[in-house]
């Protein structure tokens, strides 16, 4: 359980984190979302006492700075992955392990676990981005902590790695651990996270579960398919709905599915499909974090495009 209260951080003129308060529950994965520069990394550094600002973060009731062997309680993977230039990956972890009374055996174990078993005696300077990321995760997992704080852990991982990371985090959460993870891969987040903390420009936009977030920030759309839809389109528009044709279907927003069905019935239109299209987390994110006027439902086609593009990008 993480309790953050009144986190605040200012860099000269910019307020990076503006009085954020949230709880992260154990047993589920909590996603931490926000556009670039919204203050996610700064928040995590504040939570760990790496940056000094206002507010307080308690990990199972304790401040990070007061935990004697913190790696055994809180594992952290931060944005920067600094490694010593002349030390092997294994020695890097052994050093950190020693300060926290963690056995060397565990070092080999986690390196094997993250898939770096074969290169553990190599220097991390020669690691690729994804390998460094895995080493960072190994470091976070070293003390088998109850709480994990991960800043964009999927950054640089290959598709298998991303999939693996998702499984690992879900498994760890199901063991009753507290997982707080930031990411820009929203489709991944949708599969992985149960709870969300969404921020924009350092302030809280949303804190709650994923479904509520999607419902709150998007209007659901109704997809209608049929052989002859011209009359139906007119009737729907007369009811105040916004109708866009997409291939051979109509995408209706601003009307509930039952109402759409009723309109079709009254105009006597033949229907081959009548379904709700649930908006994706990505769409909700866009609408929540874009300028407040720009809600996704007003421009459904445009908003849907980046979603598919991103999905294709990930599939590569």
């Amino acid at each position, binding site marked *: 359980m993480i309790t953050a209260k009144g986190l605040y951080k200012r860099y000269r003129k910019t307020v990076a984190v503006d009085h954020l308060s949230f709880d992260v529950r154990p047993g589920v994965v909590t996603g931490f979302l926000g556009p670039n520069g919204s203050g996610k990394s700064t928040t995590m*550094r504040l939570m*760990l*006492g*790496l*940056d*000094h600002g206002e507010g307080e973060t308690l990990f199972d009731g304790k401040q*990070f*700075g*007061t*935990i004697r062997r*913190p*790696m055994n309680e809180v594992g*952290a993977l*931060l944005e*920067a992955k*600094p*490694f*010593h*230039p*002349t*030390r092997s990956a294994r*020695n*890097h972890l*052994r*050093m*950190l392990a*020693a*300060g*926290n009374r963690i056995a060397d055996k565990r070092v080999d174990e986690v390196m094997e676990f993250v898939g770096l078993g074969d290169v553990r005696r190599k220097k991390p300077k020669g690691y690729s981005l994804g390998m460094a990321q895995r080493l960072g995760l190994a*470091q976070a997992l070293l003390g088998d902590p109850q709480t994990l704080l991960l800043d964009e852990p999927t950054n640089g991982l290959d598709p298998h790695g991303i999939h693996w990371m998702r499984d690992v985090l879900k498994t760890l959460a199901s063991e009753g651990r507290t997982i707080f993870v930031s990411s820009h891969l929203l489709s991944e987040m949708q599969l992985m996270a149960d709870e969300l903390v969404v921020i924009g420009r350092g302030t809280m936009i949303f804190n709650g579960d994923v479904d509520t977030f999607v419902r709150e920030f998007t209007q659901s759309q109704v997809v209608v398919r049929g052989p002859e839809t011209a009359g139906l389109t007119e009737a729907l528009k007369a009811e105040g709905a916004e109708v866009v044709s997409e291939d051979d279907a109509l995408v209706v927003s601003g009307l509930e599915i039952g109402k759409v069905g009723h309109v079709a019935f009254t105009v006597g239109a033949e229907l081959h499909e009548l379904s709700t299209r649930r908006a994706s987390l990505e769409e909700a994110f866009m609408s929540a974090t874009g300028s407040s006027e720009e809600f996704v439902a007003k421009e459904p086609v445009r908003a849907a495009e980046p979603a598919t593009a991103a999905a294709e990008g990930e599939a590569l």
Partner: protein
Amino acid sequence: MGLLVTTGVAVLLGVAARNEPLDAEILTTAVNGGASFGLPFLAVFMAIIGIFACGHEYRHGTIQPTLTSLPQRSRLILAKLIVVTVTTVVVTALSMAINTAVVYIVWGEAPGLFEDPIGTALAGYAIYTLIYVLVGFGLGLLFRGVPSALVVIFLMPLIIESIIMGLAFIPALDWLVPVVKFLPFTAGSRLMEIVPPDFGPGSPDFDLFSRWTSGGIFALFAAVILTTAWILFKKRDA
């Protein structure tokens, strides 16, 4: 705790330092009993280790994982400080012992080793080295990097203080004369003198403090640097 303290490179340098300065030390030992005016080699090498103890962490950003594995900053500094101090004391003692042994082998005797001028100067030399290293440690932590700390620790004693001292010889700048005895590195080097420095005929009377008072000024200087660095380290973002 060894891990938090000296970095791998620093250890390597330590090994190098243990061997290299010995040659120079052998000479100086043979000539004046272990101390040389200016900067002793050993002090310089050990000060580099002192600077690396913290500076290196910042240079490679490893301070971040270090702090996530040991977030109590004062404990971290204390641990590093203890290791640096112990290493310095051990290496200094070792080097002095070896030099003494060499002197015995070469000359078969080491007259007056534990007596006043030589004995006290040797003790002063060991103290000087330790304080110098602590200054290095403080500078590394203060500047959060290696190069700037290196520059300061070498430029301060070798150039800046010499210039001030040189300027003090000019009659128009004689107000600098009383300042000279407070120059930390100059004061510190009095710790390891055998005979009081002679600045030549016509030199102003610097009214230098005694050996131990001068040493005290040097120690005070180190303490100020260390304390400032320590306080800042506790307050700054990692």
